[in-house]
């Protein structure tokens, strides 16, 4: 920092002579500030353009099917009859599985990183958990397809089908042949992918809690877990809900990892093990067969628009919750 300071004084002195007298300096400043504003506005325009183009592209499909597009379960390229229900269901359901699985793990790991781990280990373990977020999505897809799916087919799905399948109502979730893929496998893999995001925000929130609050609780004899449960988590709960929403938002739009394992069947099925589809996996999977100007391509763009709207709502809510907690 000291090097910067010395560098600064030299440049600063120079700036006095330029800034005050020569109009060149003022012009440069105007151009620079204009560039800054331009790039700031560009970010806004970019989001607007993305929404507008997806809506525009999907418009023929919305025109052809109306609002029925949202709750029609047919996806038939032969008869050109398209509806988004199967994909919307798959998108939301698999993302919820991911969050439900990732949540206890994140709570535990955040507790471990902030309260239990020896200070020397905190950073390396924290970084290692974060590296899970850096592994590209397609790698999770391959790992899921070649490693996890066979394990699910051999050891997880058959016993679940056998034990839980005959139970009424709940049993509907555990039907069909054990193929290895499906909604549960996709959800589990996404859980690993969103775990680092949720954990990082949990840790950040927990570290921002005033030490005085925690020390007071320790002072009256609370155990470490009691302080975590009764002081830390309630204090940060708004931001922590925001973190969970961020994880949900990430899972909703996950593409490559899901495409490898979910089976890409556009039929509605209650079973966790039956092949299914999400909006993102359908777009990735069916796009190569969708010729320009066909209703199928329009329907895929319409699906994209729906996904954007869902993600936007979830991410905006997440951000609102995280920021409002920071302010209070």
């Amino acid at each position, binding site marked *: 920092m000291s090097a*910067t300071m010395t*560098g*600064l*004084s030299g*440049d600063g002195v120079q*700036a006095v002579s330029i800034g005050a007298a020569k109009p060149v*300096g003022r012009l*440069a*400043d105007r151009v*620079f500030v204009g560039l800054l*504003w331009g*790039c*700031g*506005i*560009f*970010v*806004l325009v*970019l*989001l607007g353009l*993305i929404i507008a183009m*997806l809506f525009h592209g999907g418009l023929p499909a919305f025109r052809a099917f109306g609002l029925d597009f949202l709750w029609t379960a047919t996806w038939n390229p032969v008869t050109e009859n398209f509806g988004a229900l199967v994909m919307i269901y798959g998108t939301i359901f698999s993302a919820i599985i991911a969050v439900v699985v990732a949540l206890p793990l994140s709570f*535990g*790991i955040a*507790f*471990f990183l902030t309260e*239990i781990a020896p200070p020397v280990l905190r950073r390396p*373990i924290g*970084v290692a*958990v974060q*590296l*899970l977020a*850096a*592994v*590209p999505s*397609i790698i999770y*897809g*391959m790992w899921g*397809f070649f*490693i996890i799916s066979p394990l699910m087919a051999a050891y997880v799905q058959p016993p679940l089908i056998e034990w839980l399948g005959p139970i009424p109502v709940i049993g509907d979730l555990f039907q069909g042949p054990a193929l290895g893929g499906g909604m549960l496998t996709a959800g589990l893999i996404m859980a690993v992918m969103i*775990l680092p995001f949720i954990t990082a925000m949990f840790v950040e929130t927990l570290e921002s809690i005033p030490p005085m609050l925690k020390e007071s609780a320790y002072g009256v004899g609370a*155990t*470490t*877990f009691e302080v*975590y449960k009764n002081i830390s988590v309630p204090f940060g709960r708004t931001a922590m809900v925001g973190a969970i929403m961020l994880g949900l938002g*990430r899972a*909703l*739009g996950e*593409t*490559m990892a899901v495409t*490898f394992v979910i089976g890409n069947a556009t039929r509605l099925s209650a079973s966790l093990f039956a092949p299914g589809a999400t909006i*993102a996996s359908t777009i990735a999977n069916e*796009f190569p067969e969708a010729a320009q100007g066909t209703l199928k391509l329009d329907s*895929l*763009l319409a699906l*994209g628009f729906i*996904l954007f709207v869902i*993600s*936007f709502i979830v*991410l*905006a809510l997440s951000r609102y919750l995280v920021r409002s907690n920071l302010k209070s």
Partner: protein
Amino acid sequence: MSLAVRRAKDYTVKVVSTAFAVVALFLLAWILFTLVQKGLPALNLNVFTRMTLPPGHEGGLLNAIVGSLIQIGLAMLIGTPIGLLAGTFLAENGKTSKLGHIARFVNDILLSAPSILVGLFVYAFLVNPFGGFSGWAGSVALAILVIPVIVRTTEDMLNLVPIGLREAAYALGAPQWKVVMMVTWRAARAGIMTGILLSIARAAGETAPLLFTSLGNNSWSTDLSRPMASLPIAIYQYAGSPFDDWVALAWAGALLITVSVLLLNIISRLVLAKTG
């Protein structure tokens, strides 16, 4: 509740939490182990010297590697200045203005928005109206993914630069462009560099947005106006194929990508830790 019960509960939760952390580390190790186990045997000189060839012809990934490098490079050339300036706008001019608040919100959305939709957008915006899949379209899609990462880190890092430093420069009469370029950017350069490295790592692993933009190409091409190969697309194509040699090549490519991405992540953290 008696003290013994509370202590037992505390102990149990601690054990379970530690176990969860071990599970996370185990998962990372498992993924890396799988990549090394399946990718290393297939990683030979052919991978770097030969084109993608039909199954049974001992092909490599050269065109895919070069295609990825070109598209990532171009994406960084487009994305870095825009992201840097937009991030600077948020930190320097957008603190109190309404536009600043909205831009910050929009950037946070873009940061986590599904990458496949960015690909779909570029398809509808560039590919469809301008005559087909191209390396340009792929680069633009990656640039759009890179921008929010750079904006976010740039803003965060510039916010860490003490106000006094800026005020001192302004007090000497320096115009804003000089203050920003010679004082704030210089003071925050390690942090900004971190953001750029992290965004390269993000661009390197993205597959979905390239599906509809640069499409992939099985022959050698450096022509940006034609479909261009890329490592993630080649992996996607090969991993889903029924041919053993293609699947092996996909694992080699997967190992290559993951090692590069993780190294970039670790280096960027070291850069920040050393100077921050």
